[in-house]
């Protein structure tokens, strides 16, 4: 569609944006890579020279590494399971014609607009506080001893908070997918003798397959980086130290930039593996 001339003009005009984006991305990336091969302790002597792969080895052999991987997977897996299951159910519900549909839809979407720090603080102080929290009152009302959510069920609490934030996203994507289902297909299945549950499993669920994949992959990328919710609630204690949080502690609490950078590089590799799957799934979605 373009001539040689207009194509080179287009390249020229795109160049500033591309260069800016590249710089934005490449400079921190290269610095992280550089620091990861150095012994760099800002408050204890600063740059102490190149040390090869020592940081990489130390990061994975430290006693905190595997627990942090397990915590990360538990949070990502837990949130994914909750958001997909409840997302599908909510999408089915919101797709029914009902009174006040518009308002209900907005209410369902609302949590997505609340900043992670704010929502975590609200959950921590309003719901999960063992003395004044709503849950504590609820438990007391039924005569049970209030749970100290953030210490006794710390991982579950964080999964709950993060799920609450991401449920709207999953619901929204799945709702649009359900709305794109041809109603004649459901009617055909009804005439073919499929009761509601079978219509769900044979027609609706396969139709949602792609959308669920996309939800899972996009959420995974963001959930790997969950930070604020942990920072303002448990501060990484009680088994909630994820990979991201570990990197943060290495760099800022232990003031070991080299070690933290090595962890950062591991995280980049992990995120890219997920991204490749995401590209494939989304690409397929666009082809079909």
């Amino acid at each position, binding site marked *: 569609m373009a001539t040689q001339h207009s194509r080179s003009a287009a390249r020229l005009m795109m160049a500033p944006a591309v260069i800016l984006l590249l710089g934005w991305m490449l400079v921190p990336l290269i610095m992280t890579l550089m620091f990861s091969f150095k012994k760099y302790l800002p408050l204890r002597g600063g740059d102490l020279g190149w040390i090869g792969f020592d940081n990489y080895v130390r990061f994975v052999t430290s006693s905190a590494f595997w627990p942090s991987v397990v915590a990360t997977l538990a949070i990502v897996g837990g949130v994914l399971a909750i958001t997909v299951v409840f997302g599908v159910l909510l999408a089915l519900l919101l797709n029914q014609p009902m009174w006040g549909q518009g308002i209900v839809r907005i209410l369902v979407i609302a949590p997505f607009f609340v900043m992670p720090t704010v929502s975590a603080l609200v959950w921590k102080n309003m719901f999960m506080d063992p003395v004044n929290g709503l849950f504590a009152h609820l438990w007391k009302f039924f005569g049970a001893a209030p749970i100290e959510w953030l210490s006794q069920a710390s991982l579950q609490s964080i999964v709950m908070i993060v799920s609450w934030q991401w449920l709207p996203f999953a619901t929204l994507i799945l709702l649009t997918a359900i709305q794109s289902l*041809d109603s*004649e*297909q459901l*009617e*055909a*299945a*009804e*005439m*073919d*003798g*499929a009761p509601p549950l*079978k219509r769900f499993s*044979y*027609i609706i669920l*396969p*139709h949602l*397959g792609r959308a669920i994949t996309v939800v899972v992959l996009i959420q995974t990328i963001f959930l790997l980086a969950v930070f604020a919710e942990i920072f303002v609630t448990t501060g990484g204690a009680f088994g909630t130290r994820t990979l991201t949080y570990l990197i943060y502690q290495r760099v800022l609490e232990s003031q070991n930039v080299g070690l933290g950078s090595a962890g950062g590089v591991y995280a980049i590799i992990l995120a890219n593996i997920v991204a490749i799957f995401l590209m494939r799934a989304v690409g397929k979605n666009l082809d*079909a």
Partner: protein
Amino acid sequence: MGQIKLNQVTKSFGDVEVIPPLDLTIEDGEFAVFVGPSGCGKSTLLRMIAGLEDLTSGSVEIDGTDATTTPPAKRGLAMVFQSYALYPHMSVRKNIAFPMRMAGVDQAEQDRRIKAAAEALNLTDYLDRRPGQLSGGQRQRVAIGRAIVREPSAFLFDEPLSNLDAALRVGMRLEICEMHDRLKTTMIYVTHDQVEAMTMADKIVVLQAGVIEQVGSPLELYHKPRNVFVAGFIGSPKMNLISGAEAEKHGARTIGIRPEHIDVTGDSGLWQGVVGVAEHLGSDTFFHIHNTGLAETITVRAPGEVSFDNGDVIHLSPRLDQLHRFDAQGLRIE
């Protein structure tokens, strides 16, 4: 088995009454076609028979038993949708097997019926493909296959051929007719194409705004349209409808004469006019004639090649024994 009877059936969407009270009986083994202009309630009526749409009042009887509140799956009817409504993530085989799977038919019987249907519909080579990998005509066949294997007491078709090109449509039309001759099952077929209606039906039901205008065999409708609407709707090209002084002469408010019942000559005739457009089809020639003083245009169908051209003066002789006369209410005068 497959007699369908509608008693005083009505349907309203909110305040809008789409179907005023309506009675209709479709006999076992009959090929009934619902025909009418767009939005007249054909699909609604079919969906009410299928059970996909609730009746506002009245009752539906299938084989003499009341089925008004029976769920769609229990009515023993199979439906073929305009959009085919195939299940896109299942292979053709699975699509066809789906109703049998839901009914718990055993595997050997399923295979036997799938094989029979695939052979009858020329689908054997495509059984392992997905619907997305088929042409429109093949998809249509799969949809029909899915209906056949249920061995229903009646088939319901909602404009099944309207997404196909003209050549394929003629082919599928024949196939559906042959299928009906073979299975002898009741079929109800919705279309807005009156050629489909004329060629396929044992019984045509002409609808307008939810009201049945006439029920009858194709030739009954052609020779004895009950009113002006049916007269104008059935037949292609359309019947010429003339009102005014010429109609008064025959003691009617409106008279109708089909294009094929007017003879044309160059020198003498009852009426005369100027040729507007002449359409030469080879087998026939259609003339659209202006300035006759009778109606806007008069359409004439002359067999074979007739050489009149735009602007020629032409003389018309209607065959008076084929004239249809209608009164002030638009009803036929015998």
